């Protein structure tokens, strides 16, 4: 018989939310960009930039937090005998959902994690983003009620579940072999930002340790920002929602204490105030996360548990980030990119098509 999982209790999930909120705000104090202590979408985008998959000079850095998320979850999964290598639930669809989730998130300039942190930092534009997120997830729940389902995953080789964790180990090795050199935008094979958000980061070891801790705790507690809203809409369950609210409250209080709370709509760090597109970008992201069964953080934690489908979603997000910047889809503080609006509309159409066409009887 296993030990009871304390993190799966109500106080467990609240505790994890508080931990993430406090340390996300502190990571900003330690050097991460404003209201971006932890942003899964932004950080995967920075990784895409560091690898040269896109060449937006201001967003290039191998973010150790992402590496920590996956490896922390992997460690927890092994320690508590929850490592379950599995894959085969419509991976190509998950890849596309990941790509469009990223495209939508980069129109808003943040994933649900950053939307929460932006709100906790006083950025009023986050309200539009969060409303869009809720709307997108609500659309997703309509599909779920109608039988939307990407099908069953199959058990696979233990090593197959290791693919994304090993990619993360590889990224960590690259940063160690090719560390940032002051005043240079390239070190070995990696690109580094000289200015902009990509140049702002907490010390590598601090980021990695916080990432590992969050990955570990989130695997144990099943923390998920999309699930928080989905479960409330679908079942009126508040379990995960309490964790998400705890994150916002903890980040808000920490911001107040360290002087990072600046209320307003204009002049917010890495944000724009085009309300319609903040809303629509996050609607797209929320719908894509709901159809894929997890927020971007949760997809990383699931990848650490051996879920190869979640790993494909993560790779989809990284490729989506490359398209976002190469095609001018991503927003900047000046507003939406030249083709951002078209991309959101196409993304919504694609997600709706996926929702309408991929229904399966649950016993099939």
């Amino acid at each position, binding site marked *: 018989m296993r030990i009871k999982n304390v993190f799966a209790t109500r106080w467990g999930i609240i505790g994890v939310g508080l931990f993430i909120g406090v340390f996300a705000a502190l990571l900003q104090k330690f050097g991460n960009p404003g209201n971006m202590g932890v942003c899964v979408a932004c950080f995967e985008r920075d990784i895409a930039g560091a690898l040269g998959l896109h060449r937006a000079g201001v967003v290039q850095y191998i973010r150790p937090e992402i590496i920590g998320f996956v490896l922390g979850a992997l460690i927890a999964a092994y320690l508590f005998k929850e490592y379950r290598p599995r894959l085969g639930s419509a991976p190509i669809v998950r890849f596309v959902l990941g790509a469009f989730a990223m495209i939508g998130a980069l129109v808003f300039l943040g994933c649900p994690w950053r939307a929460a942190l932006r709100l906790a930092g006083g950025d009023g534009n986050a309200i539009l983003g969060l409303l869009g997120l809720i709307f997108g997830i609500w659309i997703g729940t309509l599909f779920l009620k109608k039988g939307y389902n990407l099908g069953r*995953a199959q058990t696979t080789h233990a090593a197959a579940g290791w693919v994304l964790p090993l990619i993360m180990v590889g990224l960590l090795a690259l940063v160690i072999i090719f560390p940032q050199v002051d005043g240079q935008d390239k070190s070995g094979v990696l690109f580094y930002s000289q200015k902009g958000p990509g140049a702002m980061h907490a010390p590598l070891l601090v980021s990695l340790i916080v990432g590992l801790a969050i990955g570990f705790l989130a695997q144990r507690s099943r923390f998920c920002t999309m699930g928080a809203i989905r479960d409330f809409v679908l079942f009126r369950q508040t379990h995960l929602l309490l964790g998400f609210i705890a994150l916002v409250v903890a980040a808000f209080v920490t911001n107040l204490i360290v002087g990072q709370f600046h209320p307003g709509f204009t002049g917010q760090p890495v944000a724009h105030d085009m309300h319609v597109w903040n809303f629509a970008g996050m609607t797209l992201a929320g719908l894509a996360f709901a159809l894929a069964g997890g927020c971007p953080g949760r997809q990383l934690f699931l990848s650490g548990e051996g879920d190869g489908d979640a790993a494909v979603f993560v790779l989809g997000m990284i490729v989506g980030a490359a398209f976002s910047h190469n095609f001018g889809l991503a927003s900047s503080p000046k507003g939406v990119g030249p083709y951002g609006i078209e991309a959101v509309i196409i993304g919504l159409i694609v997600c709706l098509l996926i929702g309408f066409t991929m229904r399966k009887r649950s016993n099939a």
Partner: protein
Amino acid sequence: MSTKVDARGLSCPQPVLMTLDEIKAGKTDEIEVLVDTETSKENVSRAATSQGWEVKNVSEDGDEYTITIKKG
């Protein structure tokens, strides 16, 4: 009379949706739910409890769990 719900290989929220559908169908007062992750086990148990059902038994067979829930 007990019925079976096979949610193996499915990720959340499918196992919960399937369990709730079976509960709402009202044809039975005992349901066996088969899942293969700890998360699904927790979610199904939590959902059943919230519907006023009780978790009677959880048996483990390798990587699979059978959760027996009973109308309270």
